[in-house]
């Protein structure tokens, strides 16, 4: 503790990562009643976090190696749990991303949430969320990471189910928590196996051990696969992906935060955090690659058929996360992290823009928004288009660069199938995002108001161009700016930053090679062309079907109703889970066990009681009122006793 004031880095780390927690505590305990004060405390806290994150990034950008602070949390037997911070380029980068996005979202929420009765609570949870995420990012050990990972889940549960009086919201929160719990238990088990087999959960130690293969291969594979479960749950990978679209029940800024820099990013972040460890297990990497691919394709298809503006971005998040997992699994450490960074920017942008639309039109339906004149809101329209372009991977937006990096990595894989999948994903992504853009920007008459009229959020009519609007618009503009410059100017500095220090931090020079574009078989230019053309083709298709005049605006999928239905119902995954839960758990085990409890166990006990009493009644026949029967009992008893001795 005495080191704290003397070491500015530590001070900044501690301050930056604990202030949101303090703000949460203060809000919940003291300032619940005062909304203004609550929001200010929260925003100030996250502002401080942002400042310290930037400070750390700048101070440590040229640090020779990772900086680690560690103190014993507790120990039990020979199992020591350390509490510590691990500051390396990856965590610093991610810390900054989280701080930036969280700060922007909180500022944005000043407008978006104004007038909400749960305003204070909202900011408390936001602070909790930011705190948990930042601590997760700089955690020094896998266990600590897991702890905050769980807290991130908790915070997202609270935020998704924020409007708890709305049944669907609380349901969505529960679903998110339980489904990620499924993955987390795997993660937890993985950690336990590592504790047992390896004994140390420090992230650098794990990475070193993984890279140098100093732990048994089997152990790595098993634990890596189990830890991958955590990634699957948190980052909504196949098959645990259906909670994420439902999580749209939360407010739009929450979705923005959830989908860009926190919660779902946690999975991918964790993957990259112990990337060298993972990469020591080819089996785990292959599994992750497959899962990422499936996820990406599935989510893209789902996005093609929904009219809910937030759902589209939710599916796109899933598919982009799949892409990131693919990148990482294919060995593209930088590509994955880079896409995580750019995605955080443009996805937050997309959600925040959607939020403005939703806030203005009180609907989630893209058709209605378009019809009611969504494009008149110039700033969000423009910004959203920028975001969509980045998502589609169009030059010069940030998504282009990161996607290219990923495709490069995929191309380096032995089988070309991953590359083709990536390209198809890129195509579909471009298609569905511009389908949305065209719906909003180029509305045409004759939209049939279908049954899917979207969700209504609590309405509060505010002046569109007042303080509220600007509180929402400024973050959007900042993010749009970031999206523009992040790819164009920051790819190489970032690569140097991250990969450079990775070389110091762990012994994985080999990994860096994977990420260089020169290493893959197909020429760089060809790949570039392929990527761009896939994106452009998708946009063109979208324009052909939705943008141009006289287009049918139904999409080619409407020709195949069964496929439409398949996509719309999320490949029946939800139904499957529901059915599985209902039959296997509720109707199966639960009811079986409950019956067992009532009938067999309790029945046995009550039966014992019953038979005891019946025994009493039975024996009481010995005590009949007839004297001579009584005497008989006595005489026969004595007689039997005598015979006992004689025989």
């Amino acid at each position, binding site marked *: 503790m005495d080191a704290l004031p003397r070491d500015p880095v530590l001070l900044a780390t501690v301050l930056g990562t604990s202030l949101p927690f303090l703000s949460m505590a203060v809000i919940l305990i003291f300032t619940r009643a005062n909304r203004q004060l609550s929001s200010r405390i929260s925003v100030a806290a996250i502002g401080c976090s942002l400042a310290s994150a930037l400070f750390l990034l700048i101070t440590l950008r040229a640090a020779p190696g990772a900086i680690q602070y560690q103190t014993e949390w507790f120990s039990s*037997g020979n199992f020591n749990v350390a509490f510590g911070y691990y500051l390396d380029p990856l965590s610093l980068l991610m810390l900054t991303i989280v701080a930036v996005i969280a700060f922007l979202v909180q500022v944005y929420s000043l407008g978006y949430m104004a007038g909400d009765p749960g305003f204070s609570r909202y900011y408390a949870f936001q602070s909790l969320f930011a705190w948990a995420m930042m601590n997760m990012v700089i955690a020094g050990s896998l266990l600590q990471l897991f*702890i905050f990972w769980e*807290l991130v889940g908790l915070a997202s549960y609270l935020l998704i189910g924020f409007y708890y009086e709305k049944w669907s919201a*609380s349901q969505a929160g529960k679903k998110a928590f*339980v489904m990620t719990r499924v993955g987390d238990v795997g993660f937890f088990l993985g950690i336990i196996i590592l504790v047992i087999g390896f004994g140390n959960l420090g992230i650098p130690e794990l990475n070193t051990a993984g890279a140098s293969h100093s732990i048994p291969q089997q152990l790595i594979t098993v634990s890596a696969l189990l830890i991958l479960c955590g990634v699957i749950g948190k980052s909504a990978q196949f098959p645990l992906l259906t909670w994420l679209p439902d999580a749209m029940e939360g407010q739009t800024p929450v979705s923005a935060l959830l989908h860009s820099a926190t919660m779902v990013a946690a999975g991918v972040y964790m993957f990259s955090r112990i990337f060298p460890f993972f990469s020591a297990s080819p089996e785990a990497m292959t599994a992750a690659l497959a899962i990422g691919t499936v996820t990406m394709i599935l989510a893209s298809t789902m996005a093609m058929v929904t009219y809910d503006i937030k759902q589209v971005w939710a599916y796109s998040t899933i598919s982009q996360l799949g892409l990131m997992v693919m990148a990482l699994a294919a060995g593209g450490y930088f590509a994955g992290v880079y896409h995580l960074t750019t995605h955080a920017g443009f996805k937050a942008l997309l959600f925040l823009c959607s939020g403005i639309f939703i806030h203005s039109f009180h609907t989630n339906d893209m058709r209605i928004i378009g019809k009611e004149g969504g494009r008149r809101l110039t700033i969000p329209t423009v910004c959203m288009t920028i975001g969509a372009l980045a998502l589609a991977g169009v030059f010069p937006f940030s998504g282009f660069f990161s996607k290219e990096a990923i495709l490069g990595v995929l191309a380096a894989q032995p089988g070309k199938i991953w590359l083709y999948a990536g390209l198809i994903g890129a195509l579909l992504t471009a298609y569905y995002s511009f389908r949305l853009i065209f719906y909003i920007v180029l509305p045409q008459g004759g939209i049939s108001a279908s049954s899917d009229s979207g969700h209504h959020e609590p309405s509060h009519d505010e002046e569109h161009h007042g303080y509220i609007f600007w509180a929402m618009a400024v973050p959007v503009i900042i993010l749009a700016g970031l999206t523009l410059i992040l790819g164009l100017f920051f790819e190489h500095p970032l690569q140097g930053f991250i990969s450079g220090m990775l070389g110091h931090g762990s012994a994985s020079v080999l990994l860096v090679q994977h990420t260089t574009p020169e290493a893959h078989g197909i020429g760089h230019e060809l790949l570039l062309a392929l990527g761009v053309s896939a994106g452009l083709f998708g946009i063109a298709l979208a324009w052909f079907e939705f943008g141009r005049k006289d287009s049918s605006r139904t999409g080619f999928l409407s020709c195949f109703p069964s496929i439409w239905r398949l996509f719309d119902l999320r490949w029946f995954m939800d139904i499957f889970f529901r059915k599985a839960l209902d039959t296997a758990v509720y109707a199966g085990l639960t009811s079986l066990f409950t019956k067992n*409890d009532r009938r067999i166990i309790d029945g046995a006990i009550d039966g014992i*009681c019953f038979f005891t009493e019946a025994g009493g009644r039975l024996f009481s026949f010995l005590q009949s009122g007839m004297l001579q029967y009584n005497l008989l009992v006595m005489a026969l008893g004595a007689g039997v006793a005598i015979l006992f001795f004689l025989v």
Partner: protein
Amino acid sequence: MTSMEMAGFPILSAILMTTVFGLLAIIFIPAERTKLIKQVSLGFATLGLVLCIWLYFAYDHQRGGLQFVERVLWVKSLGIYWFNAVDGINLPMLLLTAVVLFTGIWTMWELENRVKEFFALVFLLVAGVYGVFMSMDLFWIFVWYDVSLFPMYPLIAIWGGTRKEYGAMKLTLYLLAGSALILPAILYLWAQGGANTFDLFELQRIGFSAFDQKLTFVMLYLGFGILAAVWPFHTWSPVGHVAAPTAVSMIHAGVLMKLGAYGILRIAMTLCPEGTAYWSNLMAFLACVGIVYGALVGLAQTDLKYVIGYSSVSHMGIVGLGLATMTVGGINGAVFQMFAHGIMTALFFSSVGYIYDRTHTKIIPELGGLSKTMPIASSFFIIAALAGIGVPLMASFWAELLVFIAAVQVFPVGGVLALAGLIVSALFMLRVVQKTFYGEKNPRWEHIPDVNPFMAVPRIILVSIIVFFGLFPKLMLDIIQGTVIPFASRF
């Protein structure tokens, strides 16, 4: 050891005496002066709490082992000693008891019906609990064990709720049926020891043959296991909890159930290391089944207290699993879980108690949307539920972590199965939270006031303890493992 050993002020006896004198004081107060009775009760409970906290700080965990030993020969011809001491295992339990008693009495501040008898019986019950936790003599452990059980009957039957007479009778008989195995086992050990002593540690030094250990271990395990709600002997627990009044549920689920696990640890495992090893697979099996089973059955319950009852079954399974591993980590975790679960369940019942006192129902479908009308009261429950799920930075998380590490190491299959139970427990806790507190505001409960600050105090104390030891588990674990390390080295 000499026959007489008294190191300074008998602090442990003093803690015990706070309850006895509390009981006597209550007896001599006229029954009409309910306010005074409550104040006196709270005063004695506070005194006990203060002494326990002092004990917690005064205990030297560096040195470990037994401290504050009081040892007086009690009954010469049988070798019974008045032998009280603390070590790392019972210190958390004493602290837990003091906290739960204190908060429990505060929670019952609004009681109106037969106040005098209620608090007198509560003190009697807690005297037994303190006694079990501090005593190191088999005779006294058993005496206090029974003393702590039988006040449950009137407490539930008079002040209880749903099916109170049935629940009370079932609980009392069931638990005392457990002692039908404990007493013979204790006496058997005494007789086989041949040294005419009930002193736990002298018996431990004597050691027993493998057969004796196996035999007595299983008797003690089943006997105490009933109180620890080991599957399949758990059915008294939900029924009893449902029937019991708030403070009694708090003490019962929070403290009394720990007596069972504590008994297994303190007597069975101490005296029968070989027996433990022999039966550990059974222990682990029952514990794992209990974890999953409790959670799954909890899913189907419609009564709030039933839900908590089954969650207790599940959580006590974790304690059992930790004990079954016979490793330092596992036992550390088990003891810590006993403490954490005690506080957590007390919080659970105290929140449910508040709700039930106001709404007169604890049927989940009849409630709903309570968060709107009583946000603070609801948040206490939600916090408890989160602790029950094993959310990190709450005390129970660490306990579960330690237990599961040990369990997966020792019983891979069972450990993994039990881990899966965590998913279910999350599901059923959240389901309850959702159905009870979330959803549309229920007009039936609109007039109900939220917890006032005075009544919030005990709940806040409980929450703070959960979070405090979640943030600083070292403060408890160091004490625990100072004793557990030498303890586990015997296996």
